[in-house]
């Protein structure tokens, strides 16, 4: 049973297209995240989201929008894809509330924009 799953695993698309990446967690967690890992393996937070609050990293272009139909899902929609969007995108989840709780990561989605 996969704790945090992402679909698709690989996504190849052309510049200008709109695409979505889906994330689901079956851990009963309240908080979910999206991270971007570039070609040099550098990881950067994009969003943190729970039922009450969306925290957006201010450096993320507004072409990127998280959408959460329910607590177990956090999808990432990207408009007008650019070459620089090519990366591996990781979803993660954790318990919410005060203090820190371990984040569990999905296997990643490798996005290639041509």
């Amino acid at each position: 049973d996969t704790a945090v799953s992402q679909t698709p695993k690989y996504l190849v698309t052309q510049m200008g297209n709109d695409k979505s990446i889906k994330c689901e967690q079956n851990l009963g967690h309240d908080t979910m995240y999206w991270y971007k890992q570039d070609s040099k393996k550098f990881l950067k937070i994009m969003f943190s989201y729970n039922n009450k609050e969306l925290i957006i990293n201010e450096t993320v272009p507004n072409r990127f929008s998280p959408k959460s139909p329910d607590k177990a899902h956090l999808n990432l929609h990207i408009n007008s894809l650019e070459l620089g969007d090519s990366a591996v995108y990781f979803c993660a989840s954790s318990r919410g509330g005060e203090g820190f709780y371990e984040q569990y990561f999905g296997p990643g989605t490798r996005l290639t924009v041509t």
Partner: protein
Amino acid sequence: AQSVTQLDSQVPVFEEAPVELRCNYSSSVSVYLFWYVQYPNQGLQLLLKYLSGSTLVKGINGFEAEFNKSQTSFHLRKPSVHISDTAEYFCAVTRRNNAGNMLTFGGGTRLMVKP
């Protein structure tokens, strides 16, 4: 804002040798500290974390790390590595009481264990 520096991008080491992966952080407020491991084509897995208390923390797979507040460091160590430890290792921090618990990662260190 906080930042994390991993001083070595690659660390080659022979099997059964000890290893230290270095991590330094910068933050104006108190932080929590973590080490994650990423095996090829996989997601990240938490190795260990420092939240409070003893500055020496033990994690999975025989790894340990020591928090040094004066040197703002959190170096990862293992006394004897295995081939299976070959992976990318990431140091990360988050501010205490950080809304959203968003992690700031270092650039990663590739540990290459040779037979």
